[in-house]
């Protein structure tokens, strides 16, 4: 699997979680996968076997660590046995857009 597909697959996996509002590249927009012609913001995936970093904005409600653990487990189904660093950069209320 090329790194292009990996970052996209991780982004899809993360966004499929019901508590994830959106991916977030962090305060300076640095957390991203830099690909030819575009980038996947909020996911840093170097390649297979490398540690993965994701930044997410979550919907508030319930325990954030539980959501993060769930997210990490889902991402590790895609990436395999690598560390997945999760940063919760912000939260939104359930009613907000």
């Amino acid at each position: 699997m090329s790194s292009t597909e990996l970052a996209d697959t991780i982004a899809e996996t993360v966004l499929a979680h019901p508590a994830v509002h959106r991916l977030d590249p962090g305060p300076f927009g640095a957390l991203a996968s830099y690909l030819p012609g575009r980038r996947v913001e909020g996911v840093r995936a170097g390649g297979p076997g490398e540690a993965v970093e994701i930044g997410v904005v979550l919907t508030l409600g319930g325990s954030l660590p539980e959501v993060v653990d769930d997210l990490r487990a889902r991402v590790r189904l895609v990436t395999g046995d690598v560390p997945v660093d999760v940063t919760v950069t912000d939260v939104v209320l359930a009613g907000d857009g």
Partner: protein
Amino acid sequence: MAQSSPTKTESTTAPVQRVASTTPARLADETSQGKTSIASSVVQKIAGIAAREISGVHAMGGGVSRAFGALRERIPGGGTSVSTGVAVEVGEKQAAIDLDIVVEYGASIVDLARAVRRNVITAVERMTGLEVIEVNISVNDIHLPDTNGDDDSSAGDSGKSRVE
């Protein structure tokens, strides 16, 4: 890398890696699978919402930040004002919170502060897993119920006309 043989562990049966998801683990437990960071704006919002839930808290923030907050609410994309009056310091495992609140006249400030502190600590610890080491509350104004002139103009429910 964590695959070295368990040399000095006192129990030989204990696995090196704990079975995940037994408890909603503290943030620091996740070492080999990756770490979790929670941004301070997350803690700020949760603390702001939890403090406002307590009846008797009229508003939050000092005079200046409330004025800017009222202005900012009218600007599209200017950000939410739910974190107005909340300052936080967030570390890896702990958080410290400072609150500026305006109480309603007639509330017992001591009891109110205690209730706010308890609710904020419960909400932040339950939702983020961070240990809240302190919640400093400063009451910097009191809201009188019948002063029209000094009232915040954002009291939206007083939309009735003065004349009948």
